[in-house]
């Protein structure tokens, strides 16, 4: 039973990390129907920036709590800046071209950013310091849930609530939903579509950066390549839940996290990564547009 709970918790933590990244995918997809391949790289750059600023500050003698806050803010600011710049330079000129062009551009951007970090930093794994506060009350349950995991779960929950609030109840959220439904129509009723798209990239990048910092503190290392794998997994999660749907992305992430965790725990750990894809194929066979995806009506 304890083994089961362990797997359950680790799956849930995995799922929350996937959810933080998948949200960016799904929001961007919902609005401009683009698989933003460079999203994983944003996540990596966010974590990298946090490491650089955090390590510099902690060497200068700042307390751990302060370092965590500053590093998180730096990561979010920079990820947002990168996300918006990429959108402006690589995707905006392609808004009216075939979807495949934008996809290739995103793949190109992903390769570019990976190598940009590789060349200006290093190709090796860099140890990542753990700035997350350690909660004393968890000491007895350490092999079920440690402080990092608890922190990840809490952050994800807060981000979900915050994002739901933005999308459901603010003016910008309303504009985002309108743009997702029909870009042209939204423009006609006076919504600044460019601004809405930039905002979507900004929100997605910020959540990805949060995920990046948390997972790197948890794993204890970072590399220029981490974004790619995480990005693919998160994308699978987004598709699983029904791409374009925000609750779908969260649900898909948890299904994926648990599926991987239980699959690796009970069946075979060699195929841990394969379970994600197998779950994806099975679910898409039953529901071709994801768990919560709306059924697309074919219209002439």
């Amino acid at each position: 039973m304890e083994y089961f709970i362990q797997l359950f918790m680790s799956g849930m933590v995995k799922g929350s990390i996937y959810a933080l990244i998948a949200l960016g995918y799904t929001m961007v997809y919902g609005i401009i129907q683009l698989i933003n391949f460079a999203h994983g790289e944003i996540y990596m750059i966010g974590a990298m920036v946090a490491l650089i600023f955090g390590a510099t500050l902690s060497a200068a003698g700042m307390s751990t709590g302060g370092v965590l806050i500053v590093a998180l803010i730096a990561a979010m600011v920079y990820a947002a800046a990168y996300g918006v710049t990429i959108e402006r330079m690589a995707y905006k000129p392609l808004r009216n071209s075939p979807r495949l062009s934008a996809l290739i551009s995103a793949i190109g951007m992903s390769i570019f950013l990976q190598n940009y970090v590789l060349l200006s930093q290093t190709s090796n794994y860099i140890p990542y310091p753990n700035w997350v506060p350690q909660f004393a009350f968890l000491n007895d349950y350490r092999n079920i849930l440690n402080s990092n995991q608890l922190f990840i779960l809490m952050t994800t929950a807060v981000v979900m609530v915050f994002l739901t609030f933005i999308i459901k109840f603010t003016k910008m959220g309303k504009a985002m939903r309108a743009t997702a439904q029909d870009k042209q129509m939204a423009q006609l009723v006076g919504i600044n579509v460019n601004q809405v798209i930039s905002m979507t990239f900004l929100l997605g990048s910020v959540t990805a950066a949060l995920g990046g910092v948390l997972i790197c503190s948890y794993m204890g290392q970072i590399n220029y390549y981490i974004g790619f794998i995480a990005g693919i997994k998160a994308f699978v999660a987004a598709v699983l839940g029904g791409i374009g749907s925000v609750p779908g992305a969260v649900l898909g992430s948890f299904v994926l996290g648990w599926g991987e965790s239980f699959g690796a725990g009970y069946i075979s750990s060699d195929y841990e990564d394969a379970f994600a894809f197998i779950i994806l194929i099975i679910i898409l066979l039953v529901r071709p547009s994801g768990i919560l995806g709306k059924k697309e009506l074919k219209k002439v």
Partner: protein
Amino acid sequence: MQKINWLEELKKSTLSALWFIFLTFPIMVMKVSTMGETPETFYRWGNLVYVGIGTFFLSFVWRYMHARKEFAAKKKSTEVGIIRSTLGKPKVKKPSLTALIVFLVAFPFIFSMYQTNIMISVLIYIILGLGLNIVIGYGGLLHLGYAAFYAVGAYTYALFFHFAQDWFYSLGLQTGLMFWIAIPAAVLLSLVFGALICLPVIRLRGDYLAIVTLAFGEITRMVLQNWGDVTQGPSGISQIPRPWFFGMRVDPIFASKYIYLIALAMVIISIILIKNLENSKIGRAWEAMREDEIACQSMGVSLARSKLYSFALGAMWAGFAGVLLAAKTTFINPASFTLWESVMILCIVVLGGMGSIPGVLVGASLMMLLPEYFRAFSEYRMLIFGLVLVLMMIFKPEGIVPRVRNKYTFEEEDL
């Protein structure tokens, strides 16, 4: 042309330079070492100056290119058209084609083995590009797991050799013969594999299709990697025999020339086959499917069958290319069939021009030869490659050699 407001332009460039200095500051200027007891930070202020000056000037180029693109959109570009119409004339076409083929056949005898090996890679990627072109260019189905079929081909040959070599020896046959048996087997197997993958995928559209094919590609690779009893796991299979020539052993010096010629012959046959396929009934069905699935269906074309054919036929070429790869390198492992491989092949098709056979030839040559001859910049080549992909899509999205659409022109008298 409107007048250029230089003050405004200068302001824009300065702003973008400042923005990029801010963006690149933590990554390019700062560097931390967390190895020691306390982390140390290094500052590389030189990079800051480079980034500033670089983006200042490049932003002028960037805006100029955008302005030119808008300007060019208004008038039809004719450069490619002129080259095409000159090459299309039978007087020019026949001799130049003959000269090209003679040159390509003579290539391994003129140049060194090193060059020949590079050219074999180019030819293998041309075959892969031609195959993927059927799926993406003709069928309009985004396929991100093409490397799986490539792997099926390569592993068919490798495993056949691995398990049947003793039996072959006991029969008194040479292992060089295996290549010729492996080819039809690999082509058939990848065809079946392609059709099998297609079955669950038929119902999916667009991006769902892309992610499921990606998933299939990755699962295939993971199975190859983890099923150690059969596939030898990550270490792969080595000492795969090179092909023999009608029962004669081809000596190692000549072997790469021989494989080159086989690959070249296959490329030529493929081009002829695909050219005919393009204009056949099924080729027209693909074109209709790509343009509009609903209209295509209502005209009585079976979508499921067209998709199945395009997947299965596309996979066939990858299977063949896989056997060639195994014969060329005599060693294969799962690391050669990652998602990156699929992306590379996709880029060949898209850069060359989707649905265009000359495009695939140009795309594969550029993608393989440029990195090879710019080894001096080998550190930067992936960086440049990524950038080129983005810039190509922005400024020349139809590819280097765009597809010529079938046009039906009729004269007045016909009516």
